[in-house]
């Protein structure tokens, strides 16, 4: 399904980033980092329009030839970025949304862990499992 999933802190440093192909890891890091530009753009434009009741799902951030990058931002300004292979046409918007929702739920669990220090890189096994699940279901 997804080829890269990243959780980015409010301050824009990665809390968690994982991608399928290790040799391409660097490329995904660059892609996700660049996508923050669009995330910020979307947040600021949405924030102006809707105030507090904003949609967390940011939609397609930007397409590249090979990948589609989707964004999601929690109320605490933690960003989720999911990169999907462009050739994977079976993925609809709704499926991406539900992936983000799952990711958000799992992230909330991580945050609820009293031993987790907010702002630290995420090392939770459960979270890793959820992410793996999203990446394995190759479409």
């Amino acid at each position, binding site marked *: 399904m997804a080829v890269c999933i990243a959780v980015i802190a409010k*301050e*824009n440093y990665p809390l968690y980033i994982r991608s399928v192909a290790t040799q391409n890891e*660097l490329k995904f890091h*660059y892609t996700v*980092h660049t996508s*923050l*530009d669009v995330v910020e753009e979307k947040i600021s434009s949405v924030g102006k329009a809707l105030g507090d009741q904003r949609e967390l799902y940011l939609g397609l951030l930007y397409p590249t030839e090979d990948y589609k990058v989707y964004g999601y931002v929690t109320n605490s300004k933690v960003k989720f970025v999911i990169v999907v292979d462009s*050739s994977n046409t079976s993925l609809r918007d709704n499926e991406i949304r539900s992936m983000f929702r799952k990711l958000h739920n799992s992230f909330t669990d991580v945050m609820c862990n009293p031993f987790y220090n907010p702002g630290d890189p995420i090392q939770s096994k459960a979270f890793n499992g959820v992410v793996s699940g999203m990446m394995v279901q190759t479409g």
Partner: protein
Amino acid sequence: MECQEERPIIYTMENKPIVTCAGDHNLFTSLYTSLAQQLPREPMEWRRTYGRAPKMIHLEANFVQFKEELLPKDGNKALLTFPFLHIYWTDCCDTEAYKSSVKEDMLRWHNSLRTHGSADWVIIVVESNDTKKKNKTNILPRSSIVDKIRSDFCNKQNDRCVVLSDPLKDSSRSQESWNSLLLKLRTLLLMSFTKNLGRFEDDMRTLREKRTQPGWSFCEYFMVQEELAFVFEMLQQFEDALVQYDELDALFTQYVLNFGAGDTANWLGSFCAPVRNWSGLLLRRPIDMEKRDSIQHEEASLLDLRSYLFSRQCTLLIFLQRPWEVTQRALELLHNCVQELRLLEVSVVDGALDCWVFLSCLEVLHRIEGCCDQAQLAANSSHTVGLWAYATDKLKSLGELCGLVSEKGPTSEDLNKTVDLLAGLGDERPETVNSLQSPYKKLKEALSSVEAFERHYLELSHAAMEMYRAIGRVRSARLVGKSLAEFHMRKGDPKKAETFLQEALKSYLSEGWSLPVTHTRRQIAECQKLLDRKEDYLQTSALLAGDSNLSTEERTHFCQEILNFAGKPGNPSHKATLSMSVFAQLTQLQFHPACASVHSGAALKVELTLRCMMPISVHIQQLAASIHFDVDHGGTHGRTKRAQRRTNLGVIEFKMGDSLAGLPCSAAPGPSLELDEVQDRSPSDNSLNSTGVVCKNTHLLLHHHEGTSLPDTLNCVSPPTVTMKEGAQMLKVQDVTLAPGNNSIVFTAPSGQAGTYTLRQLCATVGEVQFVLSHIYPSVRYEVYSQEPQLTVEPLSEPLLAGLPQMVKFTLLTGHYTVKKGDALQLSNAETLPILPSTSCTARISSPTAELVSESTLSIQSSEKVTSISLPPTPPYHVLEFQLEVVCVIPSGSERPANERLTNGEVRHRPRSYSHPDTPMTAIDQRMSIDCPWSIYSTLLALTFYIPFKTKHSLLSAGNRKYIQVCVQNVSDVNFTLAEVKLTEKQHASLELQSLNTKTHQLLCSKHSLFCLWEVRWKDELPSCMKCVFSASFSPLSQDTSAFKPFHYQFQLERVTTLYSVKAEISPPAGEQHCRSGLLCGLEVCITRLTEPAEGEIAEESKTDPDGLKVTKLMYEVADSNSNWAVCGKSSGMVLMPMKVNATHKVHIEVMPLFAGHLPFPKIKVLRYLPHTAALAIQPDPDSCVENDSLSLLDKTLDDQGDTASIRSRGSVHSVGSGDQQQRGVAMPRLEAFSPGQVFNHSHTQQVLVLPATDDHIMEVNAT
């Protein structure tokens, strides 16, 4: 009317729905202009089928002459050429003419329409007044012609025949008829649209439903639906037209996707043909007829179809004023096409798609630029920038493919590729042949030479970067910059590359993206190596050597690079200076001793823990820490600081960064709050003025909040300019090997001079390379102090009891002073605080860490004035302790010793007793004056002693006999034995004090009292004033009798003699044997004078009896405080007493007992009554001060005026009377109580039996 197919370009905008005209052509020609003008003037509401929203539509029409060929044949689906309305024009007003020719013509027209199934027609009858007038006689009324036509043609459709009156005249009637005609035409046109388009759509849907059938062709269907789109476009319903194309787009996409899923449609085969032409999009024409033809003939490739579809969508979107949607869709299209070609496994020449994408991007951008002004473009660059970046990207990969990026230039193989690619572009399109900047020309030029490529590539890159920057997409701009840097690197221009890389690195660092940081840094290292920037390269290498994202081999490589450089002999005066934080981190610092505070000269070790980040062990020639030295000021300040430092056990943790080289700055926890307690003490007496908490590192904390980057962390972008400041003092260690991980290094710190030493910098030298930690934070300091010798005396046990030998501990902190042999402490002896000589007095010498160093006996020599204690030799900063036994003499009373001078000339401070709030014991402060060898000044020390006893005395009388009672209360916590209790009277020898105490030794427990009694016997006369001394010996219970210490208590008794005796008797009522409650009894009070008046007494009483006898006025008062008695009549009265022995006065008072039982007598008070003229007799208090005594004596001899003054002055002291008496004390008579011994009451505590009332059998029982 021309068929659009004949024209190369269909300008659908210029197409209008076709309306045919038949009948009188000249008539129509004359009306055509106004008709064509007026028809679109007003909009009509077009109600749509299938629930589509109604639209207001301006109708236009293309009026053409009716020909039968125009009528669509069966199966012709062309909509553009479809005549929507047929009009027959006539101005016939002549019945004859109508009948003869017009009707026939009309009939023919009507029939041909009917045969083609067209029901959209109208007959317009034009009538003018001219024609009417001309043929006035032989015409029928006009209505008859119209009626005739209606009856002939309009079968129940009367609206199909319209009359137009006087169309060429400017009259209201003409206008009205025009309006109704236009309305009719519009209505009919719309009806026709609805009907015909509906039918068309239905057919189209039917065709679409057949798409699963084998023979179905997408291209065929495409043409049908496009026809509909054309019509909508013609009607200027661009939205609807766009929908048609979007539907086609979606349908096609779905087929491609299905193909990917294995569901192949036959017709798709034609789209899978290898791509031979990649000339890009063509958006300059509204309709690209070439492509349309190829689609129609099912010869189009996928790119052709997509290009055509997009060009149509683009045209419509631009009509709809939505240019930004074009750019967005363009990007999607381009990505999608690339994907689709991949999906359909269409074979494409390498780079062909890149060419296509590049050309298409530029074409879209050109198209958009063509329809927007510059301001609009700039404001919407967020929509176009994607295309720019995409084009840049594609050009770059083309350049790489064609060998235009390498330093050497393209090879022949590359050139072949280029030729192939250029061939696929075909010829330039005629529209752009004359344009200098056409995408086609750009691409061709860029691929033609290395220089041109570079120029175009740089131009595009910079444009994309600038746009990204302008819209705030800095990260994207940096990424473009990075790929530009890669380009520069390949072109062998590391200088240009580095700027871009550094900028990108800054961004990754500030946001903490470790992998990009490492990657970029490695590229920078390459640049720096090429540029031969040694120090920068070394610094970057150091960073990379410690980067955990790299493999150990890579890290070792970079580490080796540094070591290689370090090994080369270089300029000895200038060593390469690098930041230490990347090489090794100071993680911990520990002081030994832990308090980090030593006296000058003592040994202090500093242990550093360095975490080496290098992958291999590194040998360091020298590790040095520079020290900043501050002279300490203010001893007390220093001491409080020292005390505080002790709490952290001398371990300082440095929490800078993390072992992960890529840890983000923003994620790294900020510097922790460093708080310090601040005490402001007054310099004079060391009392606390204020205290508070100060944050020491506000500058860092505030800085941290402002920006995200931390100062001087390992994540520095460029190596900070670190300089090693040459401190005066350095901690140095030579030849250390730092292994990867934690290393412990121990320094010996200098401690020569007293003051604060702050560790500032750390510098590790490896050959020609120096690693410098430019400042150590949090600041680390240790203190070297120099202390003045200090002598303190404290009690060994609290509290010190006066009168007993007590142990006192002397503590001498030698400080910087060395006690030499022969040094002695000189204690000035005080009488009240003698030092008891003791044989075994040992002094303990212990080190600052409280370890016992030695013990030795002290020699103490006492002379009359001075006690000298010879001290054993003691090294500096040691503690010397010894104990001495001292006794504080209990002050025996009001004796005031004359001021004495001590041997050293100081005024002896009289030990003053005072009551201490915490203890019931009376405290005495004793001061000691000690001369010390290290100072010319005497040290004054104070000790507080407590008197263990409280003593009270009282005079008791029995008639004339007198007794003295002394009460000794033990207020201490110690039990004592009291012996040799004695009372002596000093002045009167005749007086004998006979002890009534039986025991010689008495136990006096803590908090208990002991009473002693003596009877006073005298021979001649009892002196009015006695000065007595109570003395006793006491010792703590546990000790033997030899330890008895004396205790004295002095007191004075005055007016001891009994003057009067008072005797009361209660007699039962007459005839009764006993008193009964409720019956009046008699109380007889008998006051008797017992002694001759003394001298003082006479002087006091100035009143003289007429008999010559001195009399004194007494006042008696019967008061029963317990309410046992009711006094009937006067309870008090005045008695004149002659001042003679045995003068008696009896008073009879009626009293009534209120209860039965043994009732105590009512109290009888006797008071001295002083008339207002009489001077007050002063009753001196035995405890009152001597001053008062002498004053009162003086008063007696003073005249009246003086007396009153003295009365006033003492009014408050002696007044017994009520408050108002006292207020005006001068004129009022007053009462004065007698001293306790002066009146003896015989009937004190006597009781009388009272029987209950006789007939009273009722007993009251109160139960509660």
